């Protein structure tokens, strides 16, 4: 199976000076769950909008073999997206929302949407404006999950939801939707929440991809050393890409497995070594090693 998304040199400029995307090169294979992460203004949303054909851009971009600029209408039969919470219009009644999607989407399975909705407290005759934010997301998810799409794009799908709904959202998605033939591309600030379900990570910063890796490959690329203060000088000499101090202990992130870089065994001599979490890695790579954790969302 070919790449679900194939991007080469994708550039997008707003106005004269702002370069939102500065030559993106990446591929997303079928059956992956890819986290697209980056700080605010890094170009995440612009990248998604380009993939969805919502905004013009330069460069080469193929989504399911189609150019989203010229073949958007047929592309949307195979691509679903939840742009954000609360984009369902307030005036729309729940049963009408089902009627609508059933009427316009050839791959919508109404029975399935009904089944998902039955597990919620959402009433058919309610208007979206009468539902809570969490329920609106449940409704949107019920609609989207009943569509037999090849690619699902989620842009901050749980923003502003409480913990219960956030947890439920991803659980439903994983248990009832994802089946290794579909592909999910998700952006979120809540890195910890998606950490365990991603198969791939794409980090974007200043319109460029700064990390493109499968989650499985991360242990062979990055290591985190946690050590006591007496070893700080030694650790620094090994050129960590990031360091921080937590309760008197020091954590260093290293790039490993490259020429000149320390190995896991070398690091293990100075303290505990493990694979950094995606959140740690995000902070490390976004910060350029300055040790300021505050930019992490």
């Amino acid at each position, binding site marked *: 199976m070919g790449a679900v998304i194939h991007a080469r040199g994708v550039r997008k400029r707003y106005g004269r000076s702002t370069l939102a995307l500065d030559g993106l090169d990446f591929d997303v294979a079928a059956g992956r769950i890819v986290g697209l992460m980056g700080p605010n203004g890094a170009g995440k949303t612009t990248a998604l909008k380009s993939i969805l054909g919502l905004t013009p851009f330069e460069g080469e971009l193929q989504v399911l073999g189609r150019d989203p600029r010229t073949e958007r209408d047929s592309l949307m039969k195979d691509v679903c997206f939840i742009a954000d919470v609360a*984009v369902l219009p307030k005036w729309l009644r729940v049963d009408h929302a089902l*009627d609508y999607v059933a009427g316009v989407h050839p791959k919508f399975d109404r029975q399935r949407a009904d089944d998902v909705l039955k597990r919620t407290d959402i009433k058919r005759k309610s208007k979206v404006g009468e539902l809570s934010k969490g329920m609106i997301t449940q409704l949107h998810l019920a609609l989207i999950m009943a569509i037999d799409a090849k690619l699902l794009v989620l842009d901050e799908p749980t923003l502003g939801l409480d913990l219960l709904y956030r947890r439920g959202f991803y659980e439903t998605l994983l248990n009832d939707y994802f089946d290794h033939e579909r592909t999910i591309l998700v952006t979120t600030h809540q890195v910890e929440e998606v950490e365990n379900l991603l198969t791939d990570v794409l980090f974007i910063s200043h319109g460029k991809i700064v990390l493109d890796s499968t989650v499985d490959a991360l242990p062979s690329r990055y290591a985190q050393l946690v050590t006591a203060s007496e070893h700080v000088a030694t650790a620094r000499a090994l050129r960590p890409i990031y360091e921080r101090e937590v309760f008197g202990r020091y954590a260093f992130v290293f790039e490993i497995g490259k020429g000149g870089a320390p190995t896991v065994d070398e690091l293990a001599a100075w303290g505990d070594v493990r694979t950094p979490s995606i959140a740690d890695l995000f902070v490390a790579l976004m910060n350029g090693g300055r040790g300021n954790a505050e930019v992490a969302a």
Partner: protein
Amino acid sequence: MNLKVMKTLLWRETWEHRGLIWAPVITAAVIVLTALLSTSFTGSVQIDIDGQIDIDGKERELFASLAADLSHQRQLFAVWLGALVIPQMIVAMIVLVFYVLDSLYNERKDRSILFWKSMPVSDAQTVGSKLATALLLVPLWVWLVSMLASLVVFVIVSVKLGGTPLAPLATFHAGTWLALQLTMLQNVLVAALWYAPIAVYLLLTSVYAKRSPFLWAVLPPVLLVIFEEVAFNTSMIAGFIANRLFGFIRELDLHISSEDGDTSASLMREIARSYEQLGTLDMLAKPDLWFGVAVAAIGFFAVVRLRRWRDDA
């Protein structure tokens, strides 16, 4: 174009704008209520509550000759029932102006455009469904509602006229009635062509305006008219706009006026003239109309393009 998709898109418009369905029904109810409460028939004839008819000699003569003259009787019947659609049309037009202005603006304001765009519906289908709602769906609904309303009004008035000298006028001419409905259906289609450029202009402001599409729609023409007045002391633009706004209704001039000195013969001619006015098919011969259709077609593509690439949600 997929029929099921189009049907769904049109339903969608009625879900969002309930007023499109209810305004014609409420207007019809008001017309029926007026017929129930009113005591006048064709303007000058008073029917008192006790059934006493107050008509002067000239009108007595007119009604006597109408009672005998079946052809003019049918014409008056058609003009009278046909005229009932005019208040319906005016209310529908006002409702539709606000509908069209909202149609591509609200979805950006509440960001629901991102939901609509997540569905496999092209921008041309979306914009087309809004245009079809304004130019065909609602006018056809008005046609249907006013058809039923005219029947109810006829029944009410004929009951009131029963046993009076005007009773012959309360005859139901089935053939004329059917022909009238067909004429009105033609009028719906002619009006759709005539008003297409206005609808597209409103769509354009709706898809373009960052805020207040109503001001965007109204201010430019008003400023142009004022500018022309001040700079050249002419009012060509105003005339042009007025022609487009009122040209169609002017064609439907169904008012039968009687003045002192009119004979029943001249009133007969007046009835015949109004009857001629019921149909607007002759507007299809106007280059004006087709010029407007061409402008609307170009504007339609501009609206579709703007909705396709506008990126501020």
